[in-house]
Structure formats: C-alpha cells, structure tokens
C-alpha cells in the first residue's frame, strides 16, 4: 500500500498538464484503477483483514483524490497566470470618449439670478418679445414723442398699410413685463423677469439683442431703502463675496421716480474684477421707485401701493463674474467659446452648495 501511495503521490506532483493528471486519476482511482481494483479484493478478505485494509484503502483513496484536486487547482492557476500574461494591454490608450455638452453662460446666470431672488420671495414672470408700443412705452410713462423713445433705438415690426394700429415693437427692455404682471397678479407682488431685449445698435460693446432681468416689488410699505438692501443682498450673493458696497446716484427713467443708477465698488487689476474693494465704481443697473402712472397702467392703486423696480444686463453681469471679454461672442455659437465659457449640465446653481463650483 505504501508503495501505491508513493507511486501516485509522486506521479501527481510531477504531472505538468491536465491531460496527464486525468490519466493518472483514471489509473489510480478510476473505475478500473489500481486502488479500485484493490478495493474489490476486500471482499475476498477475512473480516479481520478487511478491518485493517478497508480504512487504509479508503484513506489512501481520499489522500490521492485530494492530491489530484490540489494539483488540478494548481495547474488551473498556472494556466490562468500564463493566459493573463498574454493579455497585456496598452492602458495608455484613451478611454472611450463621451460627448461633453455645455450650458450657455446666459442660461447659467439666469438660473443663478433666479436662485437668489427666489430666496427673497420673487417669482419669475415672462412676457412676449414682440410687444405693442403701449406695453413697451405708453404704459411705462413714455408717451409718444417723448425723447426717451427716440433714444431707445427701437426695432419696429412691419405693419400692413391696411392696419391702422401703431406698429408693434421688439421690446427694448424687460419693463413691459412689469405691466403685464401687475395686470394679472395685482399687488402685493414680487417678480423678476429675465429675457431677451432688442435695440438697433451694433458695435464693439453693443449687440442688437441682449438679455436683461427686470425686478419688481410692490407692497404697501416698500421703500427705496428696501431696494438698496435687496440689491446689496443680490450682488453679494451673485458675486459670492462677503461684503459689497453700492452707491445710488440720482438719474432719470420715465417709469420710476425717484430713479437711481447703481454703482458697485470694485477694483480692476490686470483685467481682473474684484467686487467690494478698491476705488473704482462700476455702473451695474438702473432702478427706482415705480412711477404712480406705471402702477395705474398696471391697474394697481398708487394711493395704496408703492414699490421698486430695477433692470440689469444679464450678459453684462455674466461678463463681469466670469471674465468674458466680448459681448458679441455670446451670440456667435463658436464651439471653442461654448466649450470654454459654458457650464457642465450638473453645475446647477443653488444657494446651499454655492452658485459656482
């Protein structure tokens, strides 16, 4: 028996491939293998002999089976290792590219502005871009022949000769949305109205279409001091700085009274804008207390309600915040520009995680 054991365990340890191992298995423990044949001889033995030989044979069979299994696993491991060695890949090859889309800075900034004003209770109002001259001018206290009309570089829509109405205009500002919103919602009211506006002007710093955001808050007790606070809060949140300083300067808009241009304290160093410090003042928006005639046009009683309005260039504040030099490029759709200044789909501006990454 020891001889058998020696023979097979030795042979198993020396086997080099699975076929030889299988051959050995058949030789040793296969149906007609040496050990099986020995087992068969047990029947011819005396009970006493069997008592000794039986367990010994079984033990030998187990031992050989284990050795076979161990060897089989070892051979498989070696084969796998050998195969993997042939599977070398150049992992410096580029990964499979996924297309990268972008969000336009105007959309991004509109969402930023919306997030900030939403927190202060403003909702988002909209209005048509082709509008009647009543909404764009008359209702905003800019009667016909008012010099302000001439200064607006208004685009007029074609009118058929048979149509006696004054021609519609491409809205020159987002202010007509004030009137439309007042008509529908009444007071009290807090809205912003972002959108496209149009003026017939095209040069280094002007495009015939640009984007504005209008703000309007009407209640019984809203004052210009509230306006200043709202704008300060907005600018601080938008530019993501701790302190801002605004300067109100008297000005004139037909639809507000008193009116103010608002300047922001800033510094320009090496083309970089820093908000809240420095000695420069930069004009960022126009604002004022809504003119009683405008409230009346919006069917709100000026004896009871008052409020403020402001208008700000979205493209402009986008340029300031993100250092974009040329307004005209906003509307050119140059892929290089879109990719460079655009935002990831996942950059959703929120107040809790910050507006920008």
């Amino acid at each position, binding site marked *: 028996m020891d001889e058998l054991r020696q023979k097979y365990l030795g042979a198993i340890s020396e086997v080099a491939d699975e076929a030889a191992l299988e051959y050995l298995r058949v030789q040793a423990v296969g149906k007609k293998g040496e050990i099986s044949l020995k087992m068969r001889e047990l029947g011819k033995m005396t009970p006493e002999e069997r008592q000794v030989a039986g367990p010994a044979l079984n033990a030998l069979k187990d031992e050989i089976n284990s050795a076979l299994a161990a060897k089989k696993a070892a051979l498989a491991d070696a084969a796998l290792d050998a195969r993997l060695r042939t599977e070398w890949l150049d992992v410096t090859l580029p990964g499979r590219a996924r297309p990268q889309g972008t969000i336009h800075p105007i959309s991004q900034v509109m969402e930023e502005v919306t997030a900030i004003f939403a927190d202060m209770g403003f909702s988002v109002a909209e209005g048509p871009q082709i509008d009647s001259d009543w909404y764009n001018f008359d209702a905003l206290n800019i009667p016909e022949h*008012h010099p302000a009309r001439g200064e607006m570089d208004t685009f007029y*829509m074609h009118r058929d000769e048979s149509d006696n109405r004054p021609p519609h205009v491409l809205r020159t500002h987002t202010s007509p949305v004030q009137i439309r919103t007042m008509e529908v919602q009444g007071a009290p009211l807090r809205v912003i109205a972002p959108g496209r506006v149009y003026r017939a002007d095209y040069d280094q710093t002007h495009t015939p279409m640009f984007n504005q955001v209008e703000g309007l808050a009407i209640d019984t007790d809203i*004052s210009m001091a509230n306006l200043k606070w709202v704008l300060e809060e907005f600018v601080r949140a938008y530019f993501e700085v701790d302190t801002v300083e605004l*300067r109100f300067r008297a000005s*004139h808009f037909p639809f507000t009274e008193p009116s103010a241009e608002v300047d922001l304290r800033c510094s320009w160093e090496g083309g970089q804008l820093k908000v809240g410090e420095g000695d420069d003042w930069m004009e960022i928006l126009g604002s004022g207390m809504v003119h009683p005639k405008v409230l009346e046009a919006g069917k709100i009683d000026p004896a009871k309600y008052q409020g403020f309005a402001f208008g700000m260039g979205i493209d402009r504040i986008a340029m300031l915040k993100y250092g974009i030099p040329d307004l005209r490029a906003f509307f050119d759709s140059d892929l290089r520009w879109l990719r460079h200044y655009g935002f990831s789909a996942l950059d959703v501006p929120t107040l809790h995680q910050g507006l920008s990454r």
Partner: protein
Amino acid sequence: MKFTLSWLKHHLETTASVDEIAETLTDLGLEVEGIENPAARLADFTIGKVLKAEKHPDADKLRVCEVETDQGTRQIICGAPNARAGITVVVAHPGTYIPGIDTTIQVGKIRGVESQGMMCSEREMELSDEHEGIIELPSGKVGARFIDWLAENDPAKTDPVIEIAITPNRPDALGVQGIARDLAARGLGTLKATETDPVPGTFPSPIGVSIDADTLDGCPLFVGRVIRGVKNGPSPEWLRDLLKAIGLRPISALVDITNFFTYDRNRPLHVFDADKVEGDLRVHLAKGGEQLLALDEKTYTLEPGMMVISDDRAPESLAGIMGGEESGVTADTVNVFVESAYWKPITIALTARKLKINSDAKYRFERGVDPAFTPVGLEHATRMIIELCGGEPSEVVTAGAVPGDTRAFRLDTDHVQSLVGMSIPADRQRQTLSDLGFTMKGDMAHPPSWRPDIQGPADLVEEVARIASLTKLEAKPMRRTQVGVPKPILTPMQKREQIAKRTAAALGYNECVTYSFIDEAAARLFSGGTDATRLENPISSEMSHMRPALLPGLLQAAARNQARGFADMALFEVGAVFHGGEPEEQHTLVSGLLVGRTGPKDVHGASRSVDVFDVKADAEAILAAIGAPAKAQILRGTSEWWHPERHGMICLGPKKVLAVFGEIHPRVLSAMDVKGPAMGFTIWPEEVPQRRSSSATRDALALNDLQAVERDFAFVVDADVEALALVNAAAGADKTLIDGVRLFDEFIGGSLGEGKKSLAITVRLQPTDSTLTDKDIEAVSAKIVDKVGKATGGVLRG
C-alpha cells in the same frame, strides 16, 4: 452738455474744486462724462530761456539750443524758425506727455546730436492751432510752471471743461444757469442773480410779428425787435474762447451771442438780417410744397402742417429748428431782427423727425425751454448785442402770450420719507423745493416754468431725494413674504425649459443663444419670412425677420463652425420662435442639431456618422426628462425641411405632436452652406401634458418572485412594415403576461428576397400566479404569432 468752470462760476458763487463739483453733479443726476482740465494736462511743462541757438551741423533747418530750465541748462534741438537766443519758452523735459502729438518725449539723438527735451508750440499743448513756431512768452521766470503763468496771464486757457449727460427730463440743465441752480440747492455755493432791466426801445419795430390762430398751439408766444446800426464783426476773445472750449465754432458776434444764450440759459434765439425780410414775420403752418434753403445749406420741402416763419415773400425759417439761409445774418448785416419764441416740444419733434434735422435749437425745444423766459431772454440778448455790436433797439413786438401754468402739487413730507426710506426733515424738503425755484404755498408746490418735467407729486419726491443725495440712503431689509423656508417659484413650463437644457447638455449638446432675427431666405426655408414677422428697420438684411424656428439659427451656427474647421458638432437652443407679428404668436421650442460624426476618429472605432436614431434617442430622453409619457406614436408627414423619408413625429394622437426628429433635407443644407448630413430634433415643451397628480408619492413597486421567461421571435414582413406596429401587436397579444417587447434585429434582403425584411423581437413573459409551463409559453407564443400576422402580415421566419 459742455461748459467751463469759469462759465459755471458766472452763475454760482462757490469755492468748490473741479473734482468736488464733478462728484456732486454726478450725484445730482447730471452725470459727468468727462473733465478736460488743462491744469492736469499741462502740469509738467515749465518755463525756460534760450541762452544760445546755433545751426545744427547736419541740418539747415534745425538749431541746437542751450536752454536754461528748472533742471539746469539743457541741450534741445529745435526746428522752429523762431528758436533763437533770448526768448522765453515752454519746455517739456524727457518723460513729459505732449498731448498735441500724442507722444511722451525721450532723450534722443537728432541727426547725431543729443536733444534733452522739447520746446513746444501752442498746438503741441492743445492750446490753439498755432504751429508757426514755438511759444515766445512775453514774461515768465525760468523754472516756473507754465500752467501757473497761463492762469495768471491767459486764464481762459486754463479753464476746465466739464461735459455732462442730460437725461430727457432735465431741459433746464441744458443751460449753465440751471446746472448752477442744482449745485446751489445742494449747498455747493450760491446762485448769482442775473436779472436784467428791459432795454427800452427808441423807435417802433419796422417788422411786425403775428401767429396764425391755428398755430398758437405750436407757438404760443413770439417776441422780437429790430436793432439797427449794428456792426457784425468777430466776437470778442472771451466769447470766442468760451464757445471754442465747448466745441462750437465762433462765426460772428451776432450768431455767437445767440449760441451763448442757447447754452447759458437754454434759450435758443434766432437773428434775421432785417434788410432781407420783406414786410412782417408770420408764424403759420405750411401748406405743403414750400421750399426753404436752411442754414445747413440744404433745401427742405415742407409738408402740410409744419410750423414755419414767413415774411411777405416766402418761408424764412424752420420755426424752432433752423433758420433760413436767405435771411441769415452776414458780416455785412447792419440791421437785425432778434427772435425769441416759445415752440411746443411735440410740434418741433415731429417736424424735425420728418425732415431729419438735428440742431441745438431743435434738441432744446423738443425737451422744453422755459416759456416764461422768452421775453426776458430777448432783453438779455438785446443788451449783449448793443454791448458787442453797437446799434439801437426798437420797441419789442409780441404775438401771443406766455402760456398759463397752473401746475401745483401737494408735498406730502411723510410720503417722501416712506417712499425713499430716508429721514429728511419736512422743512429741509420745503427748502429744497424753494431752492430749485418752486413756489411753496402752504403744502402746495408750484413748479418753476423751466421745469416742464414736474408733472405730479412723485416728481417732488424725486427732487427732494435727489438734492438730499441718494448716497445717504441706507439699506433696510425687506421683510420676507412668508415665515420660514421659501416655496419653489418656477412654473411647470419654466422647470421644463431648465430641465430640457440640462438634459441636452448632459447628452453632449452645446447650448447656443442665436439671434432671434434671421435673414429672409433662411426664414423662408422654415415656413417663415412673412411680412408679419418682418422688421421695419432691421440693422442688416441678415437680421430682417423674426425666426420661425430654432433650426435655421443652429444650422447657420454649424456652417460658421464648419468654416472654422470643426466638422462634428452637437448644438442646441431653447428659446422663443415667432409664428406671426402679434405678441401672442410666440412659442418656446427646444431644438438640437447633430452634424458630422458622433466624435473624432478614435482608436476604438467608436466614431461613426450621426444618424436619425441618435436624434430620436436624444429627443426621447429630453421628452422623458420633462415628463412626457413613455408611450407615444411615431407618425410621418411633417414640414418640408425634413428628409421626406427620414423623419418622424413623436405624437400622442395625430394632432398632439410633442416632437419631430429626422434628417435635415439636403436642399436646406445646401442652401445654408452646411456640409451634411445633419440630424435635428424639435420639441414643443408646452405640448407635453401636465402630470395629473401633484403628489410626490410613487406607485408601490410590484416585485414578482416568479421567474420571468424571455422568448425570441423573428418575423418576415414586407419591407415597408414599421417595426413599432409589429412590437405593439406582439405586446398586445397578452397584456397580463407580456412584460415587455424589445426589437433587437432588422435584416433586409438577402435570402428573404426583394421587398422583404426580417424583424426579430424578444418578448419577456412575467407570470404572476404560478411558474410558466411549456404549454403556457406555447400558448402565448401562438397568440403573438397570430396577432403579429394579423397586424402586419408577418410570418415566423423559418
């Protein structure tokens, strides 16, 4: 509006500096656009004396001068003919900026000889156009600053010029006195009185004036007088300097005087050569067709209703806009008729717009001059004409009268405080209004005649706040509309737009913002370009029509990018399009465009041409993101800018189109210079039905422990059978058991023969009660084969 500091000081007693004045003006709403201060410009120039001047060894016209300066004796090469020993000159040392030649001079060699500075002419320092030679000062100490010498000897040349922007509501600030009044009200000085006694006439005016009854609306008042025996030479230097400083060209004393009052008091005047006026002057409305040669040397043909001033012969002046050439004054004029009239803004604006004339007078009358000052202005002008040109004034002739002014508004001092949010004491408020010329009678404020913009109590608030200074405004928190966490504010449509944008970007598209107006040809390709959407005054023919769709703008963007060498792109836009010219004919669309390949050539061979199924998947992904139902029909037959055989409409019923996707028609591509093929989609987000329930709760998840079974079927159908019909038929075979049907293969032609194709589907069976037996599966398979056969004529592929 430009004026000089000394001009301002003619009306304002003040010790304030230029900078203080400028800052205050801006704060008052008279925004300073620029200050031209010679003291700043010329600060570095000093006085020197030429000690020696010798001919340059290598140049006949140059002299090598030794000049005594504040920095010792310097050698300066000079080309001026008058450079010679003994003269007192103005020296610029190296490093000094010379405004007249826009150069900072350096030490340099001129024809081999070193020059250590420069001696300047008046033109080089922008003092005048004089450039015959360098300045020779009649006095001056070597080393002194030239600007100090100038201030002492020729102060007009050091007078700072301030330019301010005037908002349309402030015609009074188009006169220097009006500006001074604002500053005085703020407390920056005292307004000087400039009242003048009337100049008595010594003879009746030989020229009479009248206003037609139907013209009194446009011209309520016309006054004038003849001054005879004047001498119309050049004006004195002070007046010429003043006008030149603000950019006007001095012409002759009479004209310069009218220009002076235009800027000094916002009182445009006109002077006629009295000898060229036949008979009397009459203000009336043109009949139409009359012609007038105006002072700008252009001939204007009048339309009926335009206001003119005519003599017995013909129109002599475009009333309030521009005088006529024929009756204008010349150097030979000896008898002059001075006109001071009040013209109503609207009439002036309309006429000037029609005739396309811009003039100082028009600009001012259009905004509103002080009607009450009309006769007073004539007296001022008379006085100055007699002073500068001599002559003898006639009695004043008058037609019409100063229009009545009944404006009066209650000053509610509490309201001012509540509106502005600033604490301004009531007496301060009243004082401010008085300082601005308002007459206070109790609580009622009567605006001065020079402030036509004051039209209601709100205007009083503005005046008070403006003079008090809005810089003092302190921010005050605005109370929140609700206690606690703010509610969401976006409307469902606004949310959809945002989600659509972010989904498209996530799918790899770059967002564009293209112009809302496009050229007519492009608009026509997309069913637009109609008269209703045409701009009356486009800035170019490229921007003539409101866009009927987003795709033309994206295609133009694609063409521009292709021209820059980018062949592959995915662009999208979300925005308004215009189906007509009325406000309500505007709709929001979402469009995407794929051009070229899915990506650049790559090592994995993943790059391929974009195709219809790319845009279909993208349109479906965006629709899903904005809440469109998963099941939709795909119909054909939409607009002609799509490939007729390669497009589909994603619909909920034949009339409810949510989106269109497909290949852009090759003719459209070639018309727009885009190298194709190009795939596009357009989504109508407003068409997607609103979610029925506003609850965030989901349906319970139904999980089934029984094993699902998948079976594959391949059907042979006619080639024009649509896969969706087959899939729907299979899915309808057993609605409880069939969990899903997925098309996984399409095979056309080959052994199937002409006009046939094979479509292979996987059907997933999900039992709910008991495990499926072979018999169950056979039964449902038979039903599927039957249904598909009936719906599509398809047979199982053998």
